[in-house]
């Protein structure tokens, strides 16, 4: 085996070549995170989310035994979009609210998430549930000053520990302590990864403005009704959210993070007409501002994005990575070749329910089609694998990429 530094450099170069639309020595492959990492180390989801010591040991064990080019195995956290906006005037804090971990969830007492050993069983994965914390009559307040409105009106409703200024004092101190603890754990896992030959590619975050409104302020169903009832207000609200989101996104630069993950949610729900009118314009603006600042975006197109694929071509060549879940990956790759790095291609059901032979065949087939010309990163459609995932299948995947990549 090469020494870890050499291995990390090789992997880094492989990934960067793909991102920069060049042909790497081998198609880079992204590994799993999620339940399987905890299960492999024999700890439950509660321990994985709350005991950073045990989680780090579990991640180390998984990374050592299942070597991929790029690891997404991490201590679980759920998207903290409203917090990123609420703290967007504080560069040093906003970047640290990208993920709300179990202990942060406890400090805030929020109603957005369900954590194992808290609202759900110790064996369950943490889950986002969202909710409605803004009235339909409050769009004007959101439009006027989104940071103030979310910080002062929405969060006290969404977090039991921020209900009153009095309660908020203690909660925010605790939240800060937890941010620090998580930051240290992340640094430690970064160190472990480096020792095992994984490249360091720190990922920050940014968001689609309409997703903030649907997931954290109004709830998906209400938002869809609002779009019909108050189209202009919804549109103005997305426009008002661009600035705080960009402030949050650009704050990452200071901390050396040049790749920003934008996980989309509502994309699959919308018809092309609604997508182009309410979702895409402000998402596009956020991405363009990121690119202008010399950073790249990693957009996770959740579900099926087939109906909106063409809009990606409106972005400048080499803007970042389009990570697809259930979109036809061959179609997407053919359309975006030479313009956008495409990531995805491994259905999680194949790894959970397939056999080493079926995995080998699938990967061979897929790579034959996507490998020529470069600009492709192989990855699971969803990077969290369930705890019963057969380990021989994960090994089969690694071997198949080794053979055909």
């Amino acid at each position: 085996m090469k020494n870890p530094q050499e291995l990390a450099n090789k992997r880094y170069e492989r990934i960067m070549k793909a991102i920069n639309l060049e042909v790497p020595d081998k198609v880079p492959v992204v590994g799993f995170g999620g339940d399987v990492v905890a299960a492999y180390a024999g700890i439950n989801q509660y321990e994985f989310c709350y005991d950073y010591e045990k989680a780090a040991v579990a991640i180390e064990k998984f990374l050592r035994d299942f070597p991929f080019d790029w690891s997404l195995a991490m201590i679980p956290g759920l998207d903290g979009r409203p917090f990123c906006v609420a703290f967007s005037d504080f560069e040093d804090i906003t970047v640290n609210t990208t993920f709300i971990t179990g202990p942060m969830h406890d400090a805030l007492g929020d109603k957005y998430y369900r954590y194992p050993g808290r609202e759900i069983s110790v064996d369950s994965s943490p889950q986002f549930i969202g909710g409605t914390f803004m009235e339909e009559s409050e769009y004007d307040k959101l439009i006027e000053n989104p940071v103030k409105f979310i910080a002062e009106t929405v969060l006290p409703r969404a977090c039991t520990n921020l209900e009153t200024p009095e309660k908020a004092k203690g909660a925010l101190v605790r939240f800060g302590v937890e941010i620090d603890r998580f930051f240290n754990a992340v640094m430690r896992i970064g160190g472990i990864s480096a020792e095992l030959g994984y490249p360091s590619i720190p990922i920050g975050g940014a968001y689609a403005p309409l997703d903030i409104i649907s997931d954290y302020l109004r709830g998906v169903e209400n938002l869809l009704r609002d779009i019909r009832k108050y189209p202009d207000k919804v549109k103005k609200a997305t426009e008002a959210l661009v600035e705080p989101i960009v402030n949050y996104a650009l704050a990452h630069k200071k901390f050396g993070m040049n790749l920003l993950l934008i996980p989309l949610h509502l994309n699959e729900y919308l018809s092309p007409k609604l997508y182009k009118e309410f979702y895409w314009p402000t998402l596009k603006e956020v991405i363009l501002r990121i690119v202008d600042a010399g950073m790249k975006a990693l957009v996770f197109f959740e579900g099926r994005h087939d109906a909106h694929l063409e809009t990606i071509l409106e972005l400048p060549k080499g803007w970042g990575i389009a990570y697809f879940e259930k979109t036809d990956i061959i179609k997407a790759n053919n359309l975006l070749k030479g313009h956008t790095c495409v990531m995805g291609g491994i259905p999680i059901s194949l790894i959970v329910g397939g056999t080493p032979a079926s995995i080998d065949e699938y990967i061979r087939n897929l790579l034959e089609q996507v490998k020529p010309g470069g600009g492709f990163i192989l990855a699971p459609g969803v990077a969290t694998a369930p705890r019963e995932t057969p380990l021989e299948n994960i090994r089969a995947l690694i071997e198949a990429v080794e053979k055909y990549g």
Partner: protein
Amino acid sequence: MLDKIFNLIVELEEDEAIGLAKKYIEEGGNPQKLLEACGNAMGEIGQRFEKGEYFLSELILAGDIFKSIMEFTLPKLKQGEVTKVGKMVLGTVHEDVHNIGKDIFKVFAEASGFEVIDIGIDTPPEKFVEAVKEHKPDIVGMSCLITAGVSSMKKTVDALREAGLRDKVKIIIGGGRVDEGVKEFAGADAWADDAAKGVRLCKELLGLEG
């Protein structure tokens, strides 16, 4: 008037559709016929979804309209007047607390004439088994959004098998993380990741025209 109501629902003209349906009932219209018209409209919306003309946003809005009309139509129906095409036990599987997909599917299944017994979210296999024993459904519908749900689905099918109930029901699984591979893995009879296709498959499972 029923044709007009059908069209208004299909075109998602919420206020007008509900208003006209209310007028129809108030003027002594036949609630059974209105129910059928609404069901047909939801079927048409489902077809448009499968063709890629409608998206989830349209399905959710259609569900809203349907629920609103049912609110004042169902009490007008005499007991036994409605013939159901089949009975279904439906739940989000263990360790998954999401309900949006299950709820959209439920509205469409009901609109198609299924009697749906909703056993909720985070439903352990034993609860599915109990519900099947109690309600004797034709179909068991399982929903999941997170990947952990994939193994819960398999465990639920296994539990039904162990209880000797597997052959007595058809099993359909649905949700964002579901595909052919998950169907094979879990041992279900059908899968769908959208409500429209799911309801069509449920009818097919019972030998009815999709």
